[in-house]
């Protein structure tokens, strides 16, 4: 048994890759192709769950696959924090796959084989990022993720989409270059790039160099979409909704913030960051992003774009948590990754359902949708309320930790940021809910043909919303437990 | 000043001649418009290099490197550069042949062998 566990990380990544090849081969038989996607998603989830007990017991699963270049082998290591990301990604991939199948078939989209192929490779890359044992491996998967999501972003192939795709690629590739530079600099400073709980950079260079290095990393993780380098994310909204869901919740942005947390906890270490004053730097960026992005969101009428700015704002909560450099703050940051993922994917799936069933993308057109699509609208509202940080959804958990962290870290002003942002969140979400539930459409008959979306879409929406509720009631299992282990790891620097 | 310069020139005048020839060849190769004249320039350029080789092989008072009654003690010029240049001449001839046949083809195709006119003709196509 132990032997199998040892190679499970590699198997987990191999499953979607094999599935991707199969998808290409059986591409013309839609049902078989979709069967492959679903089977792979289930298999991958199982293989991750199989590793869960071991990780929960505090152990780590390491596997070195190949020697690569000086500075790091191609190696995987499953630890508690990586597990959080992997678990979120795999659960959401499964649900998103069902949803995507429903969505793509309902809209009769073209090039579906390419679409599912890219999704499968992208999830492999996301899991790879979660399980990377060192910066180089992380970089490899990070770049693969960039490239393979491009066809997804430009899927509709309109000139507008191509333009957005170019923007997407430009931001992310430039970011990748910065990440590579940062990785190489790290290697030159310390002679290693392996993630070490509590960091390994301390004392390896002058303060200035380390500060520059941190900045390089920050730009490198452009996928975290902090302002002012967030431009690609709203642009990428031209993509089909399952892709937006994928970008926002399952993989891409999560990979970005995951990377920053990894850097903070496992490369720099909280003590070093504090002594370099990086916490304040990060706090300024995060606060600025949270408030500004919320304001942007207020002005958007296109639902998906408003959600995009909401994502930009929410991601910076995670950065904010990191910037506090306290246990509670870090816990809040890590907890916000899964919590935000589940709620945001609900929102996007619901937005996609509005497009499929009602053909509506603008908020002002959505008057009275509640009467025709009650379940979808309810789920949307629930998730929106959760994002604002109200019970009984999971959003409040991370916010409480963040608030605690702000106090604990001696930066009460951040508390103010959190409160202002909660108000702004409410300000841009409640009007949507109000429009959909209480307002009447201008033309009553325009909604006659509208029904709930097909079950393949509706069920995932309900499931993700329910999970968001479940996390509120049972926060420990498994996310908070995992996060606790991760926090213990980086604060005490215990290497089991 | 000038005297020492002249002295330097005459002491190594064979090399200077090679260099002057080479420059003439290069000039023709680059500045002449007529493709055939370019090839003539190329030939002058190559010949200059051949002469350079031959002249540094020279040993004062040396004879041809053939077996003489004195045996190998005889003073003879270095034969190796001659051999090398024999090869280089063959190469030069081949290059010239290829170049001329290309010019023939270009003339057949475009009806010009003047570089500027050729470029215009190419652009017109």
């Amino acid at each position, binding site marked *: 048994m132990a032997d199998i566990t040892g190679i499970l990380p590699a198997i987990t990544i191999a499953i979607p890759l094999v599935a991707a090849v199969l998808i290409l081969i059986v591409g013309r038989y839609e049902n078989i192709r979709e069967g492959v996607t679903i089977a792979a998603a289930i298999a991958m989830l199982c293989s991750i769950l199989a590793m869960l007990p071991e990780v929960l017991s505090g152990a780590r699963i390491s596997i070195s696959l*190949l*020697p*690569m*270049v*000086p*500075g790091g082998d*191609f190696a995987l290591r499953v630890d508690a924090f990586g597990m959080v990301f992997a678990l979120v990604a795999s659960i959401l991939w499964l649900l998103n796959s069902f949803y995507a199948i429903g969505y793509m078939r309902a809209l009769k989209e073209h090039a579906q084989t390419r679409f599912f192929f890219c999704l499968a490779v992208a999830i492999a890359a996301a899991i790879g990022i979660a399980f990377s044992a060192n910066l180089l491996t992380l*970089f*490899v998967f990070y*770049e*693969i993720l960039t*490239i393979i999501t491009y*066809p997804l972003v*430009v899927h509709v*192939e309109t000139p507008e989409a*191509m333009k957005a*795709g*170019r923007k997407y*690629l430009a931001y992310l*590739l*430039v970011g990748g*270059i910065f990440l*590579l*530079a940062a990785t*190489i*600099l790290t*290697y*030159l400073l310390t002679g290693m790039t392996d993630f070490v709980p509590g960091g390994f950079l301390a004392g390896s260079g002058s303060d200035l160099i380390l500060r520059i290095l941190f900045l390089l990393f920050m730009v490198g993780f452009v996928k975290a979409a902090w302002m002012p380098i967030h431009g690609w994310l709203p642009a990428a909204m031209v993509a089909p909704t399952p892709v937006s869901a994928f970008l926002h919740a399952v993989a891409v942005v999560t990979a970005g913030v995951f990377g920053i947390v990894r850097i903070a906890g496992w490369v720099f270490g909280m003590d070093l960051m504090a002594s370099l004053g990086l916490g304040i730097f990060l706090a300024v960026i995060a606060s600025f992003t949270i408030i500004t992005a919320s304001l942007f969101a207020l002005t958007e009428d296109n639902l998906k774009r408003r959600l995009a700015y909401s994502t930009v704002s929410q991601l910076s909560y995670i950065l904010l948590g990191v910037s506090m450099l306290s246990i509670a703050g870090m816990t809040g940051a890590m907890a916000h990754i899964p919590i935000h993922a589940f709620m945001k994917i609900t929102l996007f799936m619901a937005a996609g359902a509005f497009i499929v069933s009602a053909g509506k993308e603008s908020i002002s057109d959505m008057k009275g949708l509640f009467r025709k699509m009650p379940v979808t609208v309810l789920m949307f509202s629930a998730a929106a309320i959760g994002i604002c940080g109200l019970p009984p959804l999971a959003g409040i958990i991370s916010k409480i930790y963040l608030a605690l962290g702000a106090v604990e870290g001696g930066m009460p002003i951040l508390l103010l940021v959190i409160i202002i942002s909660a108000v702004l969140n409410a300000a841009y979400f409640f009007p949507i809910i109000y429009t959909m539930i209480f307002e009447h459409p201008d033309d009553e008959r325009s909604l006659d043909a509208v029904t709930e979306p097909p079950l393949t879409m509706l069920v995932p929406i309900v499931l993700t919303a329910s999970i968001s509720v479940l996390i509120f009631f049972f926060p420990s299992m498994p996310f908070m437990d995992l996060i606790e282990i991760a926090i213990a790891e980086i604060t005490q620097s215990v290497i089991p | 000043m000038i005297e020492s310069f002249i002295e330097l020139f005459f002491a190594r005048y064979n090399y200077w001649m090679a260099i002057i020839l*080479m420059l003439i060849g*290069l000039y023709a*190769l680059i500045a002449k418009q007529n*493709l055939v004249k*370019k090839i003539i320039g*190329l030939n002058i*350029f*190559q010949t200059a*290099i051949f002469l*350079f*080789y031959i002249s*540094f092989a020279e040993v004062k008072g040396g004879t041809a490197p053939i077996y003489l009654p004195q045996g190998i003690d005889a003073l003879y010029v270095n034969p*190796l*550069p001659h051999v*090398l240049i024999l*090869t*280089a001449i063959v*190469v030069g001839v*081949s*290059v010239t042949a*290829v*170049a001329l046949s*290309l*010019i023939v*083809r*270009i003339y057949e*195709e*475009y009806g010009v062998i003047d570089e500027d006119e*050729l470029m215009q003709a*190419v652009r017109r*196509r």
Partner: protein
Amino acid sequence: MTVINHLPVLLIAIPILASLLIFAAGWYDRRFAYPITLITVLFQFTASVILLLQVMQEGTIRYHLGGWAPPLGIELVIDSFNGFILAAIMLLAAATVVYARRSVEKEIEQEKIVSFYVLFQLLVTGLVGMTITGDIFNLYVFLEISSIAAYTLISASRKPHSYVASFNYLVLGSISAGFILLGIGNLYVATGTLNMAELAAILPASYGLATVHSAFLFLMIGFSIKIAFFPLHLWLPDAYTESPSAVTILISTVMAKVSVYALFRILFSVFTTAYIIDSFPVTGFILLMATVAIVAGAVLAIAQDDLKRMLAYSSISQIGYIMFALGVANQIALEGGLLHILGHAVMKGCLFMVAGMIIYRMGTSKLSELKGVAKTMPISCAAFALAGASMIGIPPTIGFMSKYYLVLGAFEAGLWPYAVVLLIGSLLAAVYIWKFIEIAYFGDHHDNHHTSVREGPLSMLAPMVCLAVLCLIFGVFVEVLMEAVGPAVILLLGGV
């Protein structure tokens, strides 16, 4: 056993005889020409692999032609450096020959095919000779054999413009050869020998002499023209664009790489690092020109509207990468440089094969006419995407690995501003590669004016796909390559 001992000379002698045989047999019946070429090149490939393995196990092989020991006789030397290059170029040559059959049938007039293969064989043989000879004048002779064959082959295309391209190449190539000949003459004047090993031993005594300096300059300029080192690249774009596809592949991979090899050999094995760094410091200048070449080549490539011409300018940029290694001249950077010699040969070979395939099927390589070509030629375009990713330097392809070593080497030498240029160069590569990808995959697929177009024949597809996959395999298993590259670099830097 005895045959193995004589393998170095057989590597040259058999193909020269074979080229005569092709001529004679082809006279009798045209159909004999191709099989003989194929068999001969495959023999050369096998022999080169055997020699490489032998060198890696037993050390340098020295073979005295006709039993005459140097300095009287000519010596063939195969050490860990040119053993590696030899195997690499023969791999590419073998792939090209397989690819050539159908492509040549289409692009070259029937009655020229026999002489085409004669010259093709001579070109390959001349390049092999350049690689394994230990005598510097012999190097010149082989250089001219291959050059004359190349001039003729370039003009074999049906396009009349190829005559002009060939003529221009001939003029510049002859100037380059003239300079090389002069340089060799000066070296002989200074030392009295033409054997490279002896040159290396005798030269240090006369490092200060003007003769040696001028020899160095003549050789440097001569080879810079030969490898199309910016700004001496003027012959290259036309020559690559106008020649038949098979010839383009051969000269852009095998010939370009052998010329680079010869330059490395002369700079490091004849003049040694001590000379190029201390006595006649050119590395700084080379480095500067290399960065200019990287950027200028890539920018010019972006400006092109013809696929082949774009790839040609890309070659100028990529040559810059290899020369960059030469300019940095430390262990890691040179490892990257040698890796890039192989890597660039493989990926550029693949890209030109795709271009040739497109010309084979569609008769054009104008980018504007290739919209949506991925729909009709999916395999070719997938190969392009993979090799293109390698060109950009997306991990885990070979292109990434070599650039990683180069950047690491530059950082280690404290040349980080130059390293930044390297990184920018790969972004620019992304732009021109993406230009094609965008057109091929996401171009307007609604005007299906070339629905009759389909994938090319298997004999063209197979080598192309092999090379594309090799980009990936070499990247993933780069450690295996390093076993050959590492000792080669140590040898170059003057170690044991």
